[in-house]
């Protein structure tokens, strides 16, 4: 039984390292033959069994006795668990590739996030996006965000404070990066930009975050209703004909090129911060730069 697991594990490892190839070959032998009498050679299964029982014995002799007496049953259970968790892990990888999170669109804790590191992100090169603050300052803050993403919403308070406190000393660029995992996120980006066409971007943005889940649920109807509250006359046409779609696609593409793997992501003069607490971290970086006299 264990030979099959061994074959799988060593087989996979031997793709990457020649060191495991002889072990994989032995595992294959063992799995393929399944012979009971091996007069002149120890099988891999014997070795695995002896090593694991000896290992358990060092911790607890009674546990070793138990494991040895029920070895066959335990190895069947172990094998099943192994392949089941293998399937879950593969599913997670697939989700991660599609949604950027191993749990799929619902999000939640994802072990693979550990593979992602802000240090590997590339700094965006253009000032494409919604611009605010002092453009001639020496500090540029870029935010990649998604209006329907709960983390972007959580960071919004920090963004507002940042704009309030440092408007005269930093340039701020917001780059819409709608995540496919969130319903209506692309439409929300279009709606906000359409509002921006009539000079009401920040007001519309505030409404989006304030009722995020309602917008996500209702979509078009909600977007248009919000526009009417702000008396935006060209909104419906802008929204229906997707006049600003190119802009959204441009920042989305740029974000992909930078390697953005989650929103919000902030860059402060090229240094990246990702996640719920990113706005505060970005602000701390701004303070540090200002103290250094970079502005």
């Amino acid at each position, binding site marked *: 039984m264990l030979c099959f697991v061994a074959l799988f594990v060593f087989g996979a490892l031997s793709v990457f390292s020649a060191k495991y190839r002889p072990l994989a070959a032995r595992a294959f032998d063992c799995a393929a033959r399944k012979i009971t009498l091996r007069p002149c050679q120890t099988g891999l299964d*014997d070795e695995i069994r*002896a090593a694991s*029982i*000896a*290992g358990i*014995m*060092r911790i607890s002799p009674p546990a070793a006795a138990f494991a040895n*007496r029920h070895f066959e049953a335990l190895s069947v259970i172990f094998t099943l668990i192994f392949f089941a968790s293998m399937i879950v892990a593969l599913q997670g990888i697939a989700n991660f590739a599609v949604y950027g999170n191993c749990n799929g669109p619902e999000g939640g804790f994802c072990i693979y996030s550990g593979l992602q590191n802000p240090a590997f992100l590339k700094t965006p090169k253009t000032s494409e996006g919604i611009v605010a603050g002092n453009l001639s300052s020496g500090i540029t803050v870029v935010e990649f965000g998604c209006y329907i993403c709960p983390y972007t919403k959580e960071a919004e308070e920090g963004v507002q404070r940042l704009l309030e406190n440092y408007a005269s000393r930093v340039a701020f660029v917001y780059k819409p990066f709608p995540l496919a995992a969130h319903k209506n996120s692309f439409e929300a980006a279009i709606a906000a930009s359409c509002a921006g066409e009539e000079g009401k971007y920040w007001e519309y943005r505030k409404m989006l975050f304030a009722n995020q889940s309602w917008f996500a649920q209702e979509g078009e109807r909600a977007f248009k209703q919000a526009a009417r509250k702000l008396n935006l006359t060209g909104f419906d046409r802008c929204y229906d004909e997707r006049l600003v779609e190119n802009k959204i696609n441009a920042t989305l593409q740029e974000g992909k090129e930078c390697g953005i793997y989650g929103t919000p992501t902030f860059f402060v003069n090229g240094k990246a911060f990702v996640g719920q607490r990113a706005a505060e971290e970005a602000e701390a970086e701004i303070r540090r730069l200002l103290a250094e006299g970079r502005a």
Partner: protein
Amino acid sequence: MDAAKIRQDFPALQKSKAIYFDNACTTLKPKQVIEAQRIYYEELAGCAGRSSHSIAKKTTERFEESRRKVAKFIGCLENEVVWTKNATEALNLAVRSFDYSKRRKIVTTRLEHHSLLLPIMEMRRKEGLEIGFLPLGADGALDEEKAADAIDSKTALVAIHCATNTTGLRCPVEKIAKIAHERGAAVLVDGAQAVPHFKIDFRKMGADFLAFSGHKMLGPTGIGCLIGKADALENLETFLVGGETVEQVDIERAVFLPPPKKFEAGIQNYAGAIGMAAACEYLAKIGMENVERHEQRLAERLLEAIASVPGSTLYGAKTHKGRCALASFNIKSIKPHQVALMCDSLSGIALRSGVFCAQPAMSLLGAPQGAVRASLYIYNTEEEIGIFGETLEKISKIA
């Protein structure tokens, strides 16, 4: 004899804390043997016999001196030592080159190592020879009374172990040789497991041929001997032929050299021979009677240790008398490989498990699925047996 002092000669024991109980497979090497080999590679490194420059002369001298040393150790004449690769080659040489033109039967036992059994079975397959077996008791002991009946007037060769690698028990080869000679049969003794552990004198043993390996007696791998009485060697057919085996060759006919050269084809394992001679000297200095006494004591402790493990089964006779410090056993229904691997993993004890290249022997002894074997030597101690016993005790509790 002081095992603690002897241990200091063995670099492998200095480098690791392992408990080496696999001496029936091969032994560790003392620095004297390693040094002797080094001398060949660094200071001689020529070929013996054929070239006449001074390096070659020195090589020839050392090589032939090594032959003399081995001859002295085993109690034969210098030209009665044929160098071979190992005991297996020596056994093949004797069995396959023996003259079966008048008598067409080989008598042996079911306890033999494959290295002797298979050449005999090959002679049956290829030459149609008959095989006879000496009667054995269930514990593997030879029934001396009935042995006489098994050796008849058709028997050309009696091929038998001196000590087995499965039980470590010695067989009364002197008596068998006497009976065989009375019936006009020659005697080949597999001494692989006896020469390293007992005081053996080829002349006293009375056999015609004796085979053994260097590596099981502190010597290098790749060297062994076939000792043969001068006339017995004379009567053997050629085996491997080639460079150095001939007096002269024209295309019609080759005239072979007298033994032992007749059997030593091609460049020889000079370093191995020099190393093996050093091993013989090393053992002679300790004294083989001291080796025997030390092993008797270890054998007694070893059997006690195994017997005290609940559910242990010892294979072969239960006596430590006439036995080298070797024992094969099983513990309850735990697979022998598992016991051996766990001993290694828990206490760093090197054991052998399986059927020890003697499958019919293990079946006869009642362990067709194999067993665990502990085989000790001059550097092993009673303290090590203590750890071994404790480890087995622990392992016995898992089943």
